[in-house]
């Protein structure tokens, strides 16, 4: 059956419904809201330029998430995330206006981001798509073009690695 070309303008408007998810996926990869917003802009511009290649509107979200994942990976290749230094952390610790719970949150977040960053690439992308993008297993299967069992096992391994990393960081402190 011949695939019908969709109305490009309508498809692009439809893609804008997913902007928050795209932003959150970018946040998961970059760990920085400013970079995430810039990347989201780039992703939508790419989608606008390539919208003519979209054949089926029902797959537009998967298509968009695939662009998101690829753009984020390209970004990470160029901008290796720099972990917070001890001095930067000390600033948080010594700030008397910072409530203890906020300090704990900041420290835990730092550990989490570090743990996500240390994940193998394949596990990290599954973890980010699931935990930050709230994508379903079926959507992740379509985006990454891997079997559902693989998605589940990678996600499980990623969660375990992060848990282990977090508890190690916790005991280290």
């Amino acid at each position, binding site marked *: 059956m011949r695939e019908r070309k969709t109305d490009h303008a309508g498809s692009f408007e439809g893609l804008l419904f997913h902007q928050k998810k795209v932003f*959150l996926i970018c946040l998961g990869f970059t760990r920085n809201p400013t970079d995430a917003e810039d990347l989201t802009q780039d992703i939508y511009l790419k989608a606008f330029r390539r919208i003519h290649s979209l054949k089926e509107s029902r797959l537009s979200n998967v298509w968009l998430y695939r662009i998101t994942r690829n753009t984020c990976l390209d970004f990470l290749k160029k901008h290796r995330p720099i972990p917070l230094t001890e001095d930067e952390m000390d600033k948080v610790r010594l700030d008397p206006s910072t409530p203890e719970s906020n300090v*704990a949150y900041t420290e835990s*977040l730092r550990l989490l981001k570090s743990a996500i960053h240390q994940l193998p690439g394949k596990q990290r992308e599954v973890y980010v798509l699931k935990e930050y993008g709230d994508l379903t297993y079926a959507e992740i299967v379509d985006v990454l073009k891997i079997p559902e069992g693989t998605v589940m096992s990678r996600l499980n391994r990623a969660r375990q690695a992060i848990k282990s990393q977090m508890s190690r960081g916790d005991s280290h402190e």
Partner: protein
Amino acid sequence: MNEFKDIKMVGTDDLIRREKEEALEGFDEQRFRFTLDREIKNLAVQPTRFFVLLKKPVVIFALTFLLAFLTWAAFRVLRPDPADQNYLVFKTVLAQAYDLHKENMDGYSSAPEAQVESAESEFQWALKRVLFSIQIEKDPLDSEVQVFQDVLRRSLAFSPTEEISY
């Protein structure tokens, strides 16, 4: 001394949820749409990637070099072969010789038939001598010999009573 010793680490799910909530609070959808619309409008007026590339000196240099190379290659390929040049020279010389011969033949129009045949034969033999002298050269160019053979064949086919067509 470490203040974190007694602070319980926040759960991963809560951390991610809180991080997402805070990030979304800072994410202004209207500003995002405004910036995106502006960028999309800019896309329409931006020159195509090819013209942007043309502004780079390296690309200009590469294109100039490529153009020069193509011109040189085209000149090499399309330049007439020396043998072809000889062909043209021989053809011109023989055509002139033939015209001269034809004028002479016209002068024989009232002469007896034997005399006409004699003049015709003399021209043919002259051409054969030229051809023979080329053929016995050490390295005769095939094309040159071929030219002479072609012209000679046409000359031999000449008959004073026939129309000549070039």
